[in-house]
C-alpha cells in the first residue's frame, strides 16, 4: 500500500507541475490585460500611464520569465498577491474556500443521501409507477437549468412567501446558527436538486444490475433479511461505479458552482476563479485552479481506496500493475 501511495503522490506532483504550466500558458494566451480594461473605461489615461502600470504589475515581461518567477516564489512558499483583491492569495482563498466547502458539502451530502434512498427504492421495483415517478423527478432535476431553478427558488421563497433571504451570507450582528444557516437554504436546495437526479440514476442502474446477480439470489434463498440483502450485499457492490462518479465530483466541492454563487451572491470559489481568470489575476487563478486539481486528484485517490474497501477482490497490488 505504501508503494502504491508513493507512486500516486509522484504522479500527482507531476500532474500539478504540468497543470501549472498549462494554466499559466492559457491565461497568458488570452487577449488583453487588466490595463487594457482600465484604458477602455478611462479615455484620459495616457499611454505613459499604461506602460508604467504594465511594468509595475510585471505584465510587460516574457511568458517564461513570468512563469518561472511565479514558480520559484510559489515553491518557496510565497503564492503572491491577488491583483483583483489587493491581498495575499491565501487570505483571499481562505474565506471563499470555507464558504464553498460549507455550501457544496451540504448539497453533496444531501444529494447523495436522497439519491441512495431514491435509487434503491426505484431499483427494488423497476418499471413500477414509483420507479417511473422517481425517474421523472430525476430527469426534471437533471434538465432544469441551474440559473432558472435558482431564480425560481428566490421568487417563491424570498419574494412570494418572504421566508428566506434571497442571497448573500448575512451581515454583522447575526444572531446565531439560524441567522447564518438561512442564507444556505436556497443555494443548497438549488445545488441539491441539480445533482440529485444524476446520482439517483447511477444508483438505480447499479442496483438493478447488482440485484440480478446470482449471489443476491443466493442471499435471498438463505433467508437473509431484506436490509442485509439490499444494503449489505447489493448496495455495497453497486457503490463501486457510483463512488467513481462521486469521486470525480469531489473536485467540484472545492471549486464552487459559478452560476449558483453568482445568482445567490454567495462569495465562493466558483465566482472567485471566474473573476480571477477574466481579470487576469494570474496568482489567484493559478492557485485556485491548482487547488481544484489537487482536490480532484485526492478524490480519485480516495475512490481507489474505497474500491479496495468495498470489493475485496480488488487489491493494492493489482492496482499497482
Amino acid at each position, binding site marked *: 500500500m505504501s508503494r502504491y501511495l508513493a507512486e500516486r503522490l509522484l504522479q500527482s506532483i507531476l500532474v500539478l507541475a504540468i497543470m501549472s504550466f498549462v494554466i499559466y500558458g492559457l491565461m497568458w494566451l488570452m*487577449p*488583453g490585460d487588466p490595463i487594457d480594461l482600465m*484604458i*477602455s473605461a478611462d*479615455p484620459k*489615461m*495616457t499611454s505613459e500611464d499604461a506602460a508604467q502600470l504594465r511594468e509595475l504589475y510585471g505584465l510587460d515581461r516574457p511568458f517564461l520569465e513570468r512563469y518561472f518567477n511565479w514558480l520559484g516564489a510559489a515553491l518557496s512558499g510565497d503564492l503572491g498577491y491577488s491583483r483583483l*483583491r489587493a491581498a495575499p492569495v491565501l487570505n483571499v482563498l481562505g474565506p471563499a474556500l470555507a464558504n464553498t466547502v460549507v455550501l457544496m458539502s451540504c448539497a453533496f451530502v444531501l444529494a447523495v443521501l436522497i439519491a441512495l434512498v431514491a435509487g434503491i427504492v426505484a431499483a427494488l421495483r423497476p418499471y413500477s409507477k414509483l420507479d417511473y415517478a422517481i425517474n421523472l423527478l430525476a430527469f426534471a432535476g437533471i434538465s432544469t437549468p441551474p440559473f432558472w431553478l435558482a431564480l425560481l427558488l428566490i421568487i417563491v421563497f424570498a419574494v412570494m412567501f418572504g421566508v428566506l433571504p434571497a442571497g448573500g451570507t448575512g*451581515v454583522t450582528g447575526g444572531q446565531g446558527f439560524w441567522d447564518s444557516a438561512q442564507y444556505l437554504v436556497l443555494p443548497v436546495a438549488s445545488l441539491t436538486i441539480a445533482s440529485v437526479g444524476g446520482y439517483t440514476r447511477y444508483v438505480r442502474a447499479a442496483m438493478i444490475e447488482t440485484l440480478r446477480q446470482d449471489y443476491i439470489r443466493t442471499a435471498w434463498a438463505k433467508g437473509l433479511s431484506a436490509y442485509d440483502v439490499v444494503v449489505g450485499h447489493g448496495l455495497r457492490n453497486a457503490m463501486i461505479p457510483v463512488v467513481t462518479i462521486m469521486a470525480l465530483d469531489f473536485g467540484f466541492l472545492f471549486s464552487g458552482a459559478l452560476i449558483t454563487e453568482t445568482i445567490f*451572491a454567495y462569495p465562493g470559489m466558483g465566482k472567485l476563479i471566474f473573476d480571477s481568470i477574466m481579470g487576469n489575476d494570474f496568482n489567484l487563478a493559478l492557485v485556485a485552479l491548482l487547488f481544484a486539481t489537487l482536490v480532484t486528484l485526492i478524490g480519485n485517490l480516495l475512490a481507489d481506496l474505497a474500491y479496495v474497501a468495498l470489493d475485496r477482490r480488488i487489491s493494492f497490488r493489482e492496482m499497482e500493475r
Partner: protein
Amino acid sequence: MRKVAVLVLFLMFTALSVVPARAGKDELVIGITQFPSTFNPNIDSMLAKSYVLAMARRPFTTYDPDWQLMCMLCTELPTIENGLAVPEKTPDGKDGIAVTYTIRPDATWGDGTPITTRDVTFTWEVGKHPKSGVIPKEFYRSLYKIDVKDDKTFTLHFDKLTFEYNAINSFELLPVHLEEAAFADPEAYRNRSLYETDTTNPGLYFGPYIISEVVPGSHVTLTANPLWWGETPAFKRVVVRVIENTAALEANLLSGAIDMIAGELGLTIDQALTFEQRHGDRYTIFYKPGLAYEHIDINLDNPILRDQRVRQALVLALDREAISEKLFGGRQPVANTNVNPLDWVYVDDGPRYPYDPEKAAALLDEAGWNSMKRGIRHNAAGVPLRLEIMTTAGNRSRELVQQVLQSQWKQLGIDVRVRNQPARVFFGETVRKRQFPAMAMFAWISAPESVPRTTLHSDHIPTAENNWAGQNNTGFRNAEVDELIEQIEVELDRDKRAELWRRLQHIYAAELPAIPLYFRANPYILPKWLKGVTPTGHQYPSTLWIETWRDG
C-alpha cells in the same frame, strides 16, 4: 399520512417566518452589481469603489449634480477672479499656475486626527512616485511643487495653465499618520496600504460614514461617523450588497433583502423599464441620462467608410429617435455629437442627421454605391456595400440596438454583418489595436467639459510603432481639430472657450469619425420612503451627498 405532511409543511413555514423580512429604517441596504477590487482611493479606477468610498471620504473638489465645480473638503473654490489662483511662469519658463486651497477647519480623520497639509504633501509624494501604482499620473506629473502655508492652507503649483486649473477632483487624500509606514517601500505600497490590510480602520476615512465591515464578494457595511463635520446622515448603517446577476438583484429588491438599486451600478435601462411596468407602483423609479456616450467608432482606414458621404448616409439611414423610444422608452436622449446636451459647452446649431432614408440613398448613389443586386448596393466595380459591426458579446442592450441598426441599414441596401466578442477580447485587442474592420460599438465615459484629446487628437492614434498607445481608435486626423483641442485646454475665458467648443462640435458632426447613438441613462430604483437621492449623470456618484438622503 397526508395530515402529517401538511402539519410538517405548516411548521416549516412557521419556523421560517420568524426571519425578519426587511431591515429597519435606521439601516439602508443598497444593491449594486460590482465589488470593489481595492479600497485605496488612489489605486485602480473603478466605479464600485468610487460609489462606496464617496460615503466614507470626500474629494477636495467635485462636480455637483448640476455639473458645476464645487468644494467639498476645501473652504472656498480658488479662482483667478478671487485671487486664490495666480497664473505664473514655471522655473523652466512654461505657463503655469499657483492655486491655493484651505482644508475645512473641522475636518478630521475617523480616528480624531485632524486632516492637515501633512496629509496633502504625503499624498503628493505617494502619487508622483513611479512605483506606487497611483493613477491618474497626469495630475501628479503636472503638479511640480507644493507650498505649505500652515496646517490647513497650501498652494499647488502646476506646470500647465488649463481651464481646469482649480479642479483637483482626483487628488484623494491619504492619512499620513497611518499610511506613511506602508509607503516605506513604494513598490510594495499598493499591497501594504492599510486600505488593503486594515480596511475597517476608522482613521482611513472622513466622510459621513466609515467602513466597518468588508466581506469580499458579498457586502460592505458602513456605519455613521461620529466625527463627521457635515449634516448628520439619516441612517445609522448603510450596507452595500453586491449581486452581480441583475435578475437576482431584482428579486432581492422585491423580497426586501435590499432597499434600493443604485443607478450607477444596477439594472440596464431595458431591464428597468420592464421592472417599472410590473412593479413601478411600489418604487420611485427615475432615469438620469449621463456622460456614457454610446456610439459606433468607424475605422477610417476602411476604403468604404473613408468617404464622408457614406458615413453621413449611415447615420441618416437610422431612426435613432425611434430606437430610443421603442427600446428605451425615450429615456436615453439621442446624441448628436460626443458632447452631452447637459454640458454647458454643448451647442445645438451644428449639422444634424434626422431619419431621412431618401437623403441617405441619394448620398450613397452619389458616392458610387448605386447598383442594387439582390437587395445589396454595389459600386461600379461590383464591390458590395458590406460592412461589419462589432460590440461586446452578452451586452443585451447593445445587441438589441445592433439588430435594429442592421435591419434599418438593410432597408437601404447596406449589408451589415454582426461579429461580437467578449468584452475582454473586444477592448483588449480589437478596439485597442484598431482591428475592427469597419464599425465598433461601445461607450466612452467622461467628465463634464472633458476635452477629447485622447480620442480625437491625431497624436493619439494607436499604431504598432507607438505600441498601440492612444485611444483615437477611428484613426481620425484633422489639423483643425488638433489645434482646437490645444486651444480649448488652455483657454481660460469661458466665452472664448465656448466658441472653440462650438467649432469642435460642428466639425465632429460633419466629419462623423463616429456614429453618435445616445447618452446612456442610469435607472435609479428607490423605495417610496427614501427622499433626497440626487443622481449626477457624471462619474462622481450620488453617494457623495448621502447625508442628504432621508427616510420619508
